[in-house]
């Protein structure tokens, strides 16, 4: 009981009755450490107002005290840090943050405290900080920019702080499809959704607010004789009862894209202290709609006058929202400054809520008498303007000018109403441009709407409730009929009245002194705009960039049009002649986490696992990313801590006894059909059609431009069936290349191919004891002898009691070696089996690192040599090119530049000092030449420490390399500071005659 009393006492500005809040539920929260209470249904802003807190933040540049300016997502001022530690979120708008029990909010951009901010000293330097100050004040000396000025400016400016910790919450993405997407659940949107839903269409209704209803929640209005919010609730209840309708609150449609795609962010858990189990914080939807009804409403715009940024100055419609929806009094002594009929509604509602309306200041010389009659007893100052405000951390008085006279009024808050801007943003995302409405003094949707989109209600410029309902119903009905092809159904319409909405625009109270803010969030003043115009940056796009107007997180929703009004007056032109800046997604800020969704950390992109992954993990393998794959790099046993020691041991074991390696990641393509041989002949530079069944052959293929695309071995399994392999890195690319060649170039070839990369677990078994290990693996009576299974043989058999297998006698290591392919599901068990069967022989598993060492020792080219810049000739493979047939890239490969004898060509390198370490990437320079790019003759592409030779070796390309064997050059590595002498050598360092692999 005590608690309840205290909380009510604290909420000193909470109205006694009314409002759409749950007074039975008290929610405790803190702002800058102060413990406060609010109610369910509050936003952070409304709860602060109910507690009389108006000073909420400090401004971006001048650190001026700022309060709550709006009641919606257009808020420029009331930006706070929400939550703490890893969940700390900067720049959240207090006006859209739903209150929850335990909410922690902190003001930002102030030091040491919000009330006493030392950085406010910036205001003293205001003359130096005007428009374009970056470009002027800090120009000299130039060297100071990066080291002194920029860090200083960055420290002084900016708003909230990111947490700098990993986000503990999850995000996800989702797709939804509908006939009609309705954007906005105000009166027009609800009417549209209802009409479309009743017509049987699949409807999605999105609204950024937690509660559907739009302005119906904030206005004292009636529909069909009931309060507007009651009608809204009933409508939502009917919509939710329809199985084909999905009502999505807390969902902002922030972008429109081609094909009826809409980007929507759903704040699933932002209204909770932490997300419930298995729920994301936010969800990014892609909603694909056949038709779209944009019913995004309108936002009120301010009038620019000196001191218009003081806490307590608020948009008139926001004051109505706080009073009517949240039962929170924005002030006790209120003045209203308006240029339209709409401001009068605020005065009427506030008076009804018990506030003292000190004066209604209407800039227009005359207003409709019936309007006057609705506000008896309130002082009306017609043809008057607010020219100054005073107060410390909150407005205390205003100065009003009427004709020649000025008068000061004591107030604690000031409502400002400069008219309404239809929310045209989404109509412009596919290139549409808004058009000027003289009647509303605002831009309304123009031509070039996204295909399938119609605009209804205030967003189209229909500002009155009756028109919102009529338009919405019509738009929903039409959209449903167009999307479904069904006939239109007659719709019943709820009755309501049209309210007064006349306006005579007033952008800026001229002829006064003091800072008048246009863009509150970026601290852009009317003087800045005058200055930009004077300095030649008056065109809207220039103005924006010179002053940073409209470039803050609110994208100038309350600022852009008043700025245009000011420039138009200066230039003596009409606003529509100036145009607008471009409206781009997102409509309101979107967290990167929502855009990333599931794809972060290890899920940044999908990972391909080899068939032996789990087994390799058990062996303690170290993994490496190779393209999309995760492969075992080496297998360090306990106690072996140096990777090079492990790799050298693996290499020595293979070269002395036997080892095995999972090579399943090689691209594997099954090629069949009567024309399969012809097809392969056209792809490869050498001939594959002559390959006998049961044999394998190495092949090289080129791109259209004559450079090497890929290499690999191809085996012939039957007259009309080949099994080709690609490198791991190029598997997808080669498959794509083959599809293109077949579908586009040679559709006449009767050939079919499909990727079988995932079908087969493939193992290389290599080393002098490989044959013995193979004999232990295969099923009898398979003959492993050299006569039955010679070098480059390919055959099908079974292993381990009936597991189908393909056995190839091919060698990448230079040793006696076989590759065994078995169905992938057996890969893991087979690796364990090889260890078991090979234990007596001293078998070792080896990883990609040992594989690379052995291929470098053998001088085989790989990805670092086939890098898209080398020809077959460069790589010493020129003689493979068949002269008896054509192939892709053949003609282009014989261009003179590619036949230049001075082109770098493939050789090996060994350091003159055997203890020196060679580095891949080192540039090859003649011994006595300066180490400059101009003297470069080639590069080292691959290096390895050869355990057999006991020193580092390398492969690379150097001009006329094969003719320079034995010559000494320098390998200069400017990145790591290496500069050593190396001898050019033949690329094959071990067993150049190939005796071992044929053994």
């Amino acid at each position, binding site marked *: 009981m005590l608690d309840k009393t205290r909380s009510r006492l604290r909420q000193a500005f909470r109205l006694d009755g009314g409002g759409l809040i749950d007074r039975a539920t008290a929610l405790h929260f803190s702002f800058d450490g102060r413990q406060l209470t609010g109610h369910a249904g509050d936003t952070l802003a409304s709860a602060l107002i109910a507690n009389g807190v108006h000073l909420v933040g400090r401004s971006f540049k001048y650190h001026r005290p700022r309060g709550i300016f709006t009641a919606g997502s257009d808020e420029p001022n009331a930006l706070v840090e929400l939550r703490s530690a890893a969940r700390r979120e900067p720049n959240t708008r207090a006006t859209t943050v739903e209150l929850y029990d335990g909410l922690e909010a902190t003001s930002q951009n102030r030091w040491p405290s919000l009330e006493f901010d030392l950085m406010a000293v910036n205001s003293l330097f205001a003359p130096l900080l005007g428009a374009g100050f970056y470009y002027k004040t800090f120009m000299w000396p130039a060297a100071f920019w990066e080291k002194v000025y920029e860090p200083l400016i960055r420290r002084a400016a900016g708003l909230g702080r990111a947490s700098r910790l990993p986000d503990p919450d*999850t995000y*996800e*993405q*989702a*797709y*939804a*499809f509908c006939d009609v997407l309705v954007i906005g659940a105000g009166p027009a949107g609800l009417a549209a959704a209802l009409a479309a839903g009743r017509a049987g269409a*699949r409807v999605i209704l999105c609204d950024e607010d937690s509660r559907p209803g739009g302005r119906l929640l904030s206005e004292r209005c009636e529909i069909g004789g009931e309060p507007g919010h009651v009608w809204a609730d009933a409508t939502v209840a009917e919509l939710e009862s329809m199985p084909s309708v999905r009502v999505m609150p807390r969902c902002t449609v922030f972008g429109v894209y081609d094909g009826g795609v809409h980007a929507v962010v759903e704040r699933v858990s932002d209204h909770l202290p932490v997300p*419930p*189990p*298995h*729920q994301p914080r936010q969800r990014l939807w*892609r909603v*694909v709609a056949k038709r779209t009804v944009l019913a995004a409403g309108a936002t009120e715009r301010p009038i620019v006058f000196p001191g218009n940024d003081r806490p307590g100055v608020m948009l008139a419609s926001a004051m109505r929202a706080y009073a009517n929806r949240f039962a929170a009094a924005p002030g006790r002594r209120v003045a209203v400054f308006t240029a339209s009929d709409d401001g009068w509604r605020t005065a009427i509602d506030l008076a009804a809520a018990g506030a003292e309306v000190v004066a209604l200041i209407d800039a227009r010389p005359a207003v409709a008498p019936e309007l006057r009659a609705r506000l008896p007893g309130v002082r009306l100052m017609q043809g008057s303007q607010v020219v100054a405000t005073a107060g410390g951390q909150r407005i205390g008085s205003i100065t009003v000018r009427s004709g020649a006279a000025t008068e000061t009024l004591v107030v604690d808050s000031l409502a400002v109403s400069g008219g309404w801007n239809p929310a045209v943003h989404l109509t412009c995302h596919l290139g549409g441009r808004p058009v000027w409405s003289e009647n509303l003094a605002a831009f309304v949707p123009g031509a070039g709407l996204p295909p399938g989109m119609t605009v209804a209600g205030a967003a189209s410029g229909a500002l009155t409730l009756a028109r919102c309902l009529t338009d919405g119903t019509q738009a929903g009905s039409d959209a449903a009929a167009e999307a479904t092809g069904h006939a239109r159904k007659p719709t019943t319409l709820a009755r309501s009245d049209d309210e007064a909405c006349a306006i005579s625009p007033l952008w800026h109270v001229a002829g006064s002194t003091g800072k008048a803010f246009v863009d509150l969030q970026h601290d852009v003043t009317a003087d800045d705009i005058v200055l930009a115009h004077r300095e030649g940056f008056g065109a809207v796009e220039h103005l924006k960039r010179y002053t940073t107007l409209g470039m803050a997180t609110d994208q100038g929703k309350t600022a852009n049009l008043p700025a245009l009004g000011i420039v138009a007056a200066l230039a003596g032109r009409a606003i529509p002649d100036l145009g607008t800046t471009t409206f781009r997604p997102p409509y309101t800020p979107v967290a990167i986490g929502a855009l990333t969704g*599931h*794809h972060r950390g*290890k*899920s940044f*992109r*999908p*990972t*391909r*696992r*080899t*068939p032996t*992954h*789990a087994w390799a993990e058990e062996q303690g393998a170290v993994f490496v990313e190779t393209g999309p*794959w995760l492969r075992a790099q080496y297998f360090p046993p306990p106690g072996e801590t140096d990777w090079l020691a492990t790799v050298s041991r693996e290499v020595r074991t293979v070269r002395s006894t036997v080892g095995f390696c999972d090579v*399943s990641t090689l691209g594997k393509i*099954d090629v*069949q*059909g*009567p024309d399969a041989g012809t097809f392969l002949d056209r792809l490869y530079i050498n001939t594959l059609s002559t390959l006998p069944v049961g044999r394998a052959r190495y092949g090289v293929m080129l791109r259209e431009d004559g450079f090497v695309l890929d290499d690999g071995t191809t085996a012939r399994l039957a007259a009309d069936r080949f099994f080709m392999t690609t490198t791991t890195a190029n598997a997808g690319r080669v498959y794509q290349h083959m599809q293109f060649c077949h579908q586009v170039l040679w559709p*006449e*070839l*009767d050939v*079919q*191919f*499909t*990727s*079988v*990369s*995932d*079908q*087969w*677990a493939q193992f290389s078994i290599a080393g002098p004891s490989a044959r013995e290990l193979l004999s232990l693996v295969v099923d009898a009576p398979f003959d492993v002898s050299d006569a039955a299974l010679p070098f480059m043989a390919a055959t099908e058999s079974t292993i*381990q*009691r*009936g*597991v*189908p297998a393909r056995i190839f006698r091919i060698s990448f290591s230079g040793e006696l070696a076989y590759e065994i392919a*078995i*169905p*992938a*599901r*057996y*890969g*893991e*068990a087979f690796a364990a*089996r090889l260890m078991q069967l090979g234990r007596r022989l001293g078998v070792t598993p080896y990883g990609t690192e040992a594989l690379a060492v052995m291929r470098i020792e053998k001088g085989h080219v790989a990805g670092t040599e086939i890098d898209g810049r080398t020809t077959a000739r460069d790589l010493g493979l020129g003689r493979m090119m068949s002269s008896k047939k054509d192939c892709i890239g053949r003609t282009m490969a014989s261009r003179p530049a590619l036949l230049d004898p001075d082109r770098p060509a493939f050789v090996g390198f060994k350091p003159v000092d055997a203890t020196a370490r060679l580095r891949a990437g080192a540039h090859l320079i003649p011994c006595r030449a300066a180490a400059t790019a101009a003297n470069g003759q080639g590069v080292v592409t691959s290096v390895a420490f050869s355990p057999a030779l006991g020193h580092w070796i390398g492969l690379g390309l150097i001009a006329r390399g094969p003719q320079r064997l034995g010559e000494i050059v320098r390998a200069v590595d400017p990145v790591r500071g290496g500069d050593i002498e190396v001898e050019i050598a033949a690329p094959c360092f071990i067993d150049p005659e190939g005796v071992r692999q044929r053994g």
Partner: protein
Amino acid sequence: MVNRLAPSSAFGLVHRLGHHGAVRPARIAVCERTDLALASVIARRHAERALATRIADTFALALPVTPHRCEAGGVAFIWAGPGQWLATAGGEPGHRFEARLRKALAGLASVCDQSDGRAILHIAGPRARDLFAKGLPVDLDPSVMQPGATLVSAVAHIGIHLWQLDALPTYECAVARSYAHSLWHWLEASAAEFGLTVAPE
């Protein structure tokens, strides 16, 4: 005498059996299907019509030429693209199914065993559509896709081949085996809010 090699689960589901997520009973049930033999069937040039006739004669089913699945006597042909199908058969080793098809379709189609190339998940339950909505850019609404229909698309950047078996709805989803773990990671994270049961086959 050596033991036969033990097959492994592509998704590693042996370690994931049981209930996941908050909701009980689970609204989505998943198991891996390792019993299905799979083979890609690609029509030879100009042989589609003859192939359809042969398949009708041999397997008593109509070869689908639109994205659909046709099943008869335990063998199904699932459309996989123009002139391409994924053929499935229950309880038969993959290489034997390939051999059977090669013989039956000789000269009319190229056949290739994919029983280990693709891993198959059987996914059923009232929230299965909501699960796929979290990654599949295709409308699975019953007004658009009914039992018997199939599609080739991608989930979480992973290519999948999906077919619908019944109106519960129940789906089967084929994925390149090496991507199975990544797909599973997405699935488990996405299905948890609906409650997920992982069952043995």
